């Protein structure tokens, strides 16, 4: 009897302190590591999220830009942080699901506890506004005809690189790839006549005035309703760039639930919706459980994609 009483009291004590700790969370500012420089793509959307979560939770969120090596340094720092709920990270698809397969980094799919996904942007094929190509078929025909086609995008291994390789593979053509950079740099390359097309987010048309030939998403994109998807044209290439909030593995479930719930609330606030619309991001929310499964699936899926860019996978 006594042992069970002690066990009961001990159990209550643990439960109480856990709830007490939960009730107190967060007691101090929460650092959110953004693995890219301030003002970049990931940074802008990350700060919009942080702002919204600050309003929802009434807690202080501090963005930290930890740059380097294509986002891997910041991601590694997140993986190595204490799992106490006071260090989080805002990561796009590539850093957590692609980079670990490309080079030795001190983290993998078991280093993180996904909290929520907040955005998912499909990629699109864009060309110069005065380009003679009107559809993706024109572009493929030109490539087959031997014209010098140059695709531009980010560093090898980035989603822009993988996407154009997937398209080339699906159509059975080849072209040159120029890793000049994404977003504005890619647009500048196209306008200088150096590159023919880019495979970046669907916002490229709205922001830089390029012409969209096709969208690599599951369905047509809002604002680009008369642009067909690659799927519609019989080419099964779906490539999107998603962004999510992560915590180091081992963070207490109670903390993760609090954050996930706050995240769900945050993405529905006016300021968030407006901010993301201005930044040309398509909002897509996934809570903790769903995102956890999705993340693991993406980790495997992106590994399978790598041979298309010429990476030889070691036998696992």
């Amino acid at each position: 009897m006594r042992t069970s009483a002690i066990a009961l009291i001990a159990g209550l004590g643990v439960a109480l302190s856990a709830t007490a700790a939960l009730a107190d969370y967060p007691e101090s500012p929460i650092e959110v590591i953004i693995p890219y420089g301030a003002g970049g793509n990931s940074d802008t959307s990350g700060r919009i999220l942080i702002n919204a979560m600050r309003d929802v939770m009434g807690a202080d969120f501090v963005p930290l830009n930890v740059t380097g090596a294509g986002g891997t340094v910041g991601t590694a720092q997140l993986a190595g942080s204490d799992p106490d709920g006071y260090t989080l990270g805002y990561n796009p698809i590539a850093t957590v699901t692609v980079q670990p397969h490309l080079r030795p980094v001190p983290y993998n799919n078991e280093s993180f506890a996904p909290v929520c996904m907040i955005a998912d942007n499909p990629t699109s094929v864009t060309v110069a506004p005065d380009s003679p190509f009107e559809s993706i078929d024109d572009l493929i025909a030109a490539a087959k005809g031997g014209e010098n086609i140059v695709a531009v995008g980010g560093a090898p291994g980035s989603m822009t690189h993988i996407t154009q390789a997937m398209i080339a593979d699906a159509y059975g053509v080849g072209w040159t790839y120029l890793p000049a950079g994404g977003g504005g740099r890619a647009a500048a390359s196209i306008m200088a006549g150096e590159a023919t097309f880019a495979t970046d987010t669907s916002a490229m048309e709205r922001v830089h005035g390029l012409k969209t030939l096709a969208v690599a998403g599951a369905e047509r994109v809002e604002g680009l309703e008369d642009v067909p998807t690659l799927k519609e044209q019989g080419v099964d290439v779906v490539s999107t760039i998603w962004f999510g909030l992560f915590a180091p593995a081992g963070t207490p479930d109670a903390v993760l639930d609090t954050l996930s719930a706050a995240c769900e609330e945050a993405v529905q606030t006016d300021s968030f919706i407006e901010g993301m619309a201005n930044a040309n991001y398509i909002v897509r929310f996934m809570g903790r459980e769903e995102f956890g499964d999705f993340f693991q699936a993406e980790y495997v899926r992106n590994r399978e994609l790598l041979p298309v860019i010429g990476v030889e996978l070691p036998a696992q």
Partner: protein
Amino acid sequence: MGIDAFIAALGLLADPWAILIMLLATVVGMIVGALPGLGTVTALAMILPFTFVLTGPQAIGLLLAIYVSSVYGGSIPAILINVPGTPQSAATTFDGYPMAKAGKAAEALGWVTVASTIGGIFSMIVLVFAAPQLAALAVQFGSIETFALIVFSLTTIAWVSAGNPIKGLLAGVIGVILSTVGVDELSGADRFTFGNFALSAGFHVVPILIGLFALSEVFVTAGQGISTTAKPIISTGFKIARFRDWWAMKRTILRSSVLGTFLGVLPGVGATAASLIGYAQAKSASPNSENFGKGEPEGIVASESANNAVTGGALVPTLALGIPGDAATAVMLGALVIHGITPGFQLFNRNPDLVSFIFVALLVANIMMLIVGAMMAQVFSRVLKLPHALVMGGVVALSLAGSYVIRFSVLDVWVAVMAGISGLLLRYANVPLAPIVIGFILGTPLETNLRQGLIVTQMQPLKFLESPIAVGFFTLTLIVVLWPLLKRYLPKRRTID
């Protein structure tokens, strides 16, 4: 830009909150710029959360004020303690610190404050009248053209080598090699990281600057022996030179402002390189060029008007194309986007009022910088009244903190310390330090653009010569390199005639 748009812009500015915010921002920007290790990008990133609660025009005014004043703020420690507060002021240390040591800190501060303002306003005027045209020019610069431009920029190493070209070349080469450390983006290869993951990000310029310039000074002071660390004669305060002296410098100011503006417009060079190139160009064209590096005001005027001229120049591609001109304008671009302002090809057509407002705000920001700078310089220069040893102690505290907060990495602090001791040894060996910085900054874009150019031309470098812009820069490079040789032969021919 019509007159009514201008008046509408002035109207937006009549909001007293906007003026107050800009004034505060100027002070904050100056302080953040003056803290080595923080810099313009950090200042803007810090202030970003505050912009969420402001209206569009207020946010723009805030950002521009911080941008402009932080670039200027970096010159203050460059002069007073040989540490550039921002990388863009690296060239200001060459003549600023010698001036401070000679007791002319007040004059130096006067020179840089007014020079920065002139550079900033010059680039603003260029922005107002020629932004779309300049943007069209910037777009012409692909990888090959940028490569040629950087090759040309590397020749400036010769001018900051203090008369020792071989050692200057050595320093430049060291700088380039340092820039290759880390993961090579184009191939995924780890270069010279020796298995250390933190090194895969490569070195950052700020810890190298802090080490080479600030910490090496601490070590050199230690090496000089105790008896010589006497208090130098200092003039504190703020002194603006007479108009006559300014007029004598007009060509330097104009040339540096033009250089800064155009290098800001073009991609791939950046404000740090622009100020170094501005300095080098001024030295090459000046009749006083032997005095450069010993406390020649022309040097700091060239450096500071160039780096502030970059502010207006970098806004050209940012506003007209939606492509950030440098890291600082990238942050501003992000902030503008969050506020629903999409810079780019449509901005000038759809929102001419807003564009005019940006111009006016930029002008106001520069003027505020001048006024606030004059007042705060008085305060800052009092630092020199402390015994030199204490100032060096402060430099140590600053260096430890400043190099850490770049990327929140202790590796960067190690880099600063190692750069410090290396700087000492290099100085003892009479190797100029400036070319190391130039080589480091230009090394990455040099290699990246070269390899991108090779990819585009399918490994046929001769095709580089198909670009007229590239040929132009290559020719200029040849001229600059061969000019000293030509000079030796030409006078002989004249006497024969």
